[in-house]
């Protein structure tokens, strides 16, 4: 065993280092995202926000963490103990495991010795692996909801479960266009295919894919426009009603990790990753260049995170049938439409920039589907709707 470790150390330590970076940064990031979110919320609502602990309230996050960690651990009598403890752990585990194939800095497409900004480089199915693992994160929520043995928790869990399954479809479909255009599932390859001019960024060819992807990814994170799983007015706290202290922290951290993942994916797949005008071409091993690229990537990710946080205070929560309608009647047809355009362009070998025509399809398609959705949304709830499983769920809830 020792011999084995000694032998494989040159390939082992970069991996362990990358795992260490993720393990160290994700909790701190989660902690400070709550702080930033509260500050942004205060800004949106014309308040001051947390400003008592430390300069500008910057230590508020740490104070919150200490309070949550030192809280008394209460285990309700009626819960299924084993699953009750497993659920938050599993939730965080899947959220962090999805980061395995995600580059958090510039990664060359050819493997090089030494530290690299990714845990598992050169995985040929990169993005698919990510979707596969994040599809498991429904387990944490559904187990938590069921193990709490509480009606409201169960309803929250089941809502989120239905939401997860529905929104996984547009999420996968929207990425297919990108994969077909860049010819690889590997995230590093997808990013390197966006090098060169700024017009090579995928957002300028496939804005429709961006919108579908971002919406459905937001739904997968269970954030506010889509947070029916923890709808306070109807379900107390949803699936985490019975959780407190550190177990609640784990659920919370998982949610913020999902936000980070979605932001990274958006930046990597659509906004050119670590490329920037004047900072293109293959990744060199030059330390300054690497740091600059990392900064560019992190800057883009921060922008997306900020956008997600502002969305939270701009949009009201969906009703359940609106949620399902958006996925099945809005996003899935749009994603298919986008894939059709990409397929046509690729099959007939048209210049790649013809794909910008999808912008026209975007306008036409969203207008049509928006009118369609308007019709369905404004229809009163009692008006004859076909009884499908989804509506059965909803009437039970």
């Amino acid at each position: 065993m020792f011999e084995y470790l000694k032998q494989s150390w040159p390939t082992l330590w970069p991996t362990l280092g990358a795992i260490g970076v993720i393990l160290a940064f994700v909790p701190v990031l989660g902690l400070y995202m709550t702080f930033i979110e509260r500050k942004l919320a205060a800004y949106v609502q014309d308040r001051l926000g947390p400003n008592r602990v430390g300069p500008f309230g910057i230590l508020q996050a740490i104070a919150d963490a200490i309070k949550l960690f030192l809280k008394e651990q209460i285990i309700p009598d009626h819960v299924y103990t084993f699953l009750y403890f497993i659920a938050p752990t599993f939730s965080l585990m899947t959220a962090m495991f999805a980061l395995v194939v995600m580059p958090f800095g510039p990664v060359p497409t050819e493997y090089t010795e030494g530290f690299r900004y990714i845990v598992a480089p050169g995985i040929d199915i990169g993005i698919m692996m990510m979707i596969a693992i994040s599809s498991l994160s429904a387990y944490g929520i559904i187990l938590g909801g069921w193990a709490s043995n509480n009606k409201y928790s169960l309803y929250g869990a089941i809502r989120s479960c239905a939401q997860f399954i529905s929104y996984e479809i547009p999420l996968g479909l929207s990425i297919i266009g990108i994969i077909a255009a860049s010819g690889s599932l590997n995230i590093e390859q997808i990013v390197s295919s966006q090098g060169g001019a700024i017009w090579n960024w995928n957002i300028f060819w496939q804005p429709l894919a961006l919108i579908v992807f971002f919406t459905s990814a937001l739904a997968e994170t269970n954030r506010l426009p889509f947070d029916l799983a923890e709808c306070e007015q109807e379900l107390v706290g949803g699936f985490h009603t019975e959780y407190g202290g550190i177990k609640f922290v784990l659920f919370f951290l998982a949610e913020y990790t999902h936000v980070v993942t979605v932001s990274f994916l958006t930046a990597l797949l659509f906004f050119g990753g670590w490329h920037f005008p004047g900072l293109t071409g293959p990744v060199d091993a030059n330390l300054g260049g690497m740091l600059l690229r990392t900064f560019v990537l992190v800057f883009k990710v921060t922008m997306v995170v900020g956008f997600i946080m502002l969305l939270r205070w701009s949009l009201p929560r969906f009703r359940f049938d609106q949620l399902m309608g958006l996925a099945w009647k809005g996003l899935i047809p749009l994603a298919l439409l986008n894939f059709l355009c990409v397929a046509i362009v690729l099959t007939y070998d048209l210049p790649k920039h013809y794909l910008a025509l999808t912008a026209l399809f975007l306008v036409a398609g969203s207008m049509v589907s928006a009118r369609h959705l308007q019709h369905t949304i404004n229809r009163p709830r009692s008006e004859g709707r076909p009884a499908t499983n989804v509506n059965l769920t909803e009437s039970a809830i």
Partner: protein
Amino acid sequence: MNLLNNYFLNSAFFAQSGTESAVPTAVSQVVDSAVPIQAWTNSMLVPIVLGAVGYLFIQHGVVKSKAYFAAGAVAVLLAVGFALGFTPGTFDSYVLMAFCAVATGGGIGFLTAREPVYAALGFATAVLSVCGVLFMQSALFIAAATMIVYAGATIIIFLFVLMFAQQTELRTYDVQLNNPLVAAAIGAILLATITMCVTKNNAILPVRVDSTRVMSAASLPDSLSSEAGKEASKKLDAIDPNLRYVPKLTAGLGRSMYTDYLLAVELAGTVLLVATIGAIALAQRTTETQS
């Protein structure tokens, strides 16, 4: 580490196979060090039959006491330890065995759990561990697909339904099978057949990618597969005809799925179509009865 090694092996193999290098020998060594194919003995039937009998005992409520269960678990652990002591293994193979053990444990949990929800979780454990086994074999695509389809969607829907339909007390059909004897017999025969097919030489004829077919992934045009790649698959042929062409690009994957594995893909599509039609038919019937 197996993953990374295989990645190196593959990339080195496909990159440099045009020139003479040591890589093909490395591949053939890997192939040689795998489990020998001719390993079938009739004594393999014994654990299968014993397993079936044990299952029947559990079903009839004979083995109820926890002491019996603990004794069984200890016996299994001893046997596994004994086997491991005599198996020359690397770190990879131990990880692989751990995944296999967890998969078996999940399967046992699935069979013996009293509550449907725990049974579904046992199934999920088994599926995820099988994904781990596939990862260890560098079968990344099929592992991810299994994860998405089975663990991520199918079992979640099982749980969904089970949690909704949960009763306060368990029904008899949750606890007891109607006909455990038939179930055990069918299971034992199936397991014996699979074991025989896997371990007996040429029980399953090797199915190869037909490289003469026009659209097959093995005969990709130069734009999609380099000369080196073709050379590599020829060399793989020479080493072991059971080795298949490994598509490097996503385009190659798509080609392979829609030519070499066309039948499987079409059958899966048909099953999904039938399921969709069935769902629509069921939903329609509900509407009629309601109105």
